[in-house]
């Protein structure tokens, strides 16, 4: 008896809660760490990037206006769904990164745990970063963090799922929406993550995921005037400089690539959240 022929998955882009192919019709071959063919991933174009930004912008008012409790619940839901697909992610990670099954499973677990960790931050970060300021006058004065807006993220090339969750969760937990460029060589877990997001109460457009070439797409996002910030976590040095220069055009907040490789399994601290928060300070007189 011959082995059953597997039904393969088609990996597409994730924009506005839908899974379109690239408008360019392009795709590229994704191979395992051993060089075996895994899939044809969509190769996103600048127009896909543009559409993703539109979707992210459209989603921003609703997502940033949702209660922090609600966002926390949604992120926790993502963790739940991820846990449920542990085996699938472990297999994809093993393929992409060439790690053993046990290590791959641990990497999935780490991503799930990180999501749970960030989910809990949604209604606490404001208390940690905000302040009632004792100004010298009869005024109530309160500072509180607010999301920056639409964030373009170049995902880190390694650490696949943990890295991906490590850059997406801190951006969205505070109310930002994002356009993520998946790791070019290992994009498949990103699209599987998109499937998780699509089925876990994350409103369409809050996270948009593009596969393809960061060198091709990232400059369009960095130069896009409706993007408020760029996270260059996965950009190589030349691309990072290009993007930072382009980002200057509308004074995007820029997170430069890390000076040293990041351990995505270590305690990330709050830096990746604070990088995409604005402090708003409200004054009001106090009087009868």
């Amino acid at each position, binding site marked *: 008896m011959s082995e059953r022929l597997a039904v393969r998955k088609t990996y597409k882009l994730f924009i506005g809660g839908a899974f379109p192919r690239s408008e360019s019709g392009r795709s590229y071959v994704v191979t395992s760490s051993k060089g075996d063919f895994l899939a044809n991933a969509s190769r996103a174009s600048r127009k896909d990037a543009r559409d993703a930004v539109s979707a992210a912008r459209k989603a921003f008012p609703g997502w940033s206006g949702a209660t922090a409790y609600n966002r926390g619940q949604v992120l926790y839901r993502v963790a739940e769904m991820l846990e449920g697909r542990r085996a699938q992610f472990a297999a994809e990670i093993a393929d992409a990164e060439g790690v053993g099954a046990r290590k791959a499973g641990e990497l999935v677990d780490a991503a799930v745990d990180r999501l749970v960790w960030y989910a809990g931050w949604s209604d606490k970060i404001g208390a940690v970063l905000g302040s009632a300021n004792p*100004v010298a006058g009869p005024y109530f004065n309160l500072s509180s963090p607010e999301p920056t807006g639409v964030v373009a993220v170049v995902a880190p090339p390694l650490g696949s799922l943990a890295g991906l969750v490590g850059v997406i969760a801190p951006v969205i937990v505070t109310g930002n929406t994002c356009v993520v460029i998946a790791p070019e060589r290992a994009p498949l877990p990103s699209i599987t993550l998109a499937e998780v997001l699509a089925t876990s109460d994350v409103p369409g457009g809050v996270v948009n995921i593009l596969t393809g070439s960061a060198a091709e797409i990232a400059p369009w996002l960095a130069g896009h005037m409706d993007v*408020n910030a760029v996270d260059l976590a996965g950009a190589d040095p030349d691309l990072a400089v290009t993007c930072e220069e382009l980002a*200057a055009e509308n004074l995007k907040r820029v997170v430069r690539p890390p000076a040293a490789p990041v351990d995505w399994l270590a305690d990330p601290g709050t830096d990746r959240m604070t990088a995409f928060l604005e402090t708003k300070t409200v004054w009001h007189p106090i009087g009868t």
Partner: protein
Amino acid sequence: MFEYAPAPESRDIVDIKPSYGLFINGEWVEPQSEERHKTVNPATEEVLSEIVWAGEADVDRAVEAARKAFATWSAVPGSERAKYIFRIARIIQERSRELAVLESLDNGKPIRESRDVDLPLVAAHFFYYAGWADKLSYAGFGPDPRPLGVAGQVIPWNFPLLMLAWKIAPALACGNTVVLKPAETTPLTALAFAEICRQADLPPGVVNIVTGAGETGSALVRHPGVDKVAFTGSTEVGRLIARSVAGSRKKLTLELGGKAANIVFEDAAVDQAVEGIVNGIFFNQGHVCCAGSRLLVQESVAEEVLDALKRRLATLRMGDPLDKNTDIGAINSAAQLAKIRELSEAGESEGAERWSPPCPIPDRGFWFPPTVFTGVAQSHRIAREEIFGPVLSVLTFRTPAEAIEKANNTPYGLSAGVWTEKGSLMLWAASRLRAGVVWSNTFNRFDPASPFGGFKESGYGREGGRHGLEAYLAV
């Protein structure tokens, strides 16, 4: 009629040298640059002094001095750094009258403002950050946050000494050393501050002041020995700086332009709203990045508010900045005056209606009367571009949602105003305005404990409060 007689503040209290060198490593040094320019009193065009426009070699020397001083200054215990900064705050208080007069002479702002707003805030800012110097481990940036190194700081001409305080106080408190470049039209209080550093026995090289224009600033922010760049000024220059630090590890904070909406709802306390509108746009001749330059007034009360506003504007007193009764001083420079005129003419030619109260203009100096444009559309240049002068654009709205939509319809996001007696509406509006500072039922209030800075193209990073420390710590 009750005519107020002239009540000029005495200028004998200030001692301006005919020319100044650069303040590097605790000494006045002769520059390598041979370029010297005059700084004038914008109210009279009288030459006040001559300053250097420092070149790359001079900037290099200043950065080297700061670099060298950093090694020792960053090792000084926080409690000792605090005492130096407290000393500076006290000396500023002691010399506040002199510094206020000097500021008004060089900048053109009314003495009432330099005396009652600028100088008290300058001293308060040093006092505030002095207290942080030995408490940084409690600031939420980890158990032992470290300074960045040498801060290259470039400040504007609208609040010369106050902007210096906003830059230098937190930098020193965190253990950084500083090379600061004041604006070329308003260098004198920064140069006076150099003397204050000496009176305070601040170690040499901790604060260095290099005068000059754009090229000096550019040399400073590009200098490889600078670890931190802080800039307050136009969005245009902010963009250039952001581009120039790309690919470096320099930490950057920018406090840039604005086009703030001041929203007056129909239930506002009208008399205080009118005061807030006036304070919002005519404070400091409108040379304020967070000025309430767009008045958004609910259509149902627009006529009443505008009548009251015009009546109030007729009482503004424009003239000699040193007169204690002056409300509106001189425009800081001929170039700025030209820009204000150009945009005002554009406002007229685009169809907005221009109004100014009767206002005698002095014969010499740079002056622009308080001006209100009504019938302004969102598409007009005067509703979109920062004028940085005493020019108010008035737009109307019908519903709260329309007010917020119009207010946010700008690339800027520095500040906004909300006037309503209804608490829930105020909080609703404040939460939806994409601006770093929201003044509700007040405007243009500042305090060292209150973070200040913008969203979007108004820049990034915050100055003031605990938040202001982050810009000067390796976090």
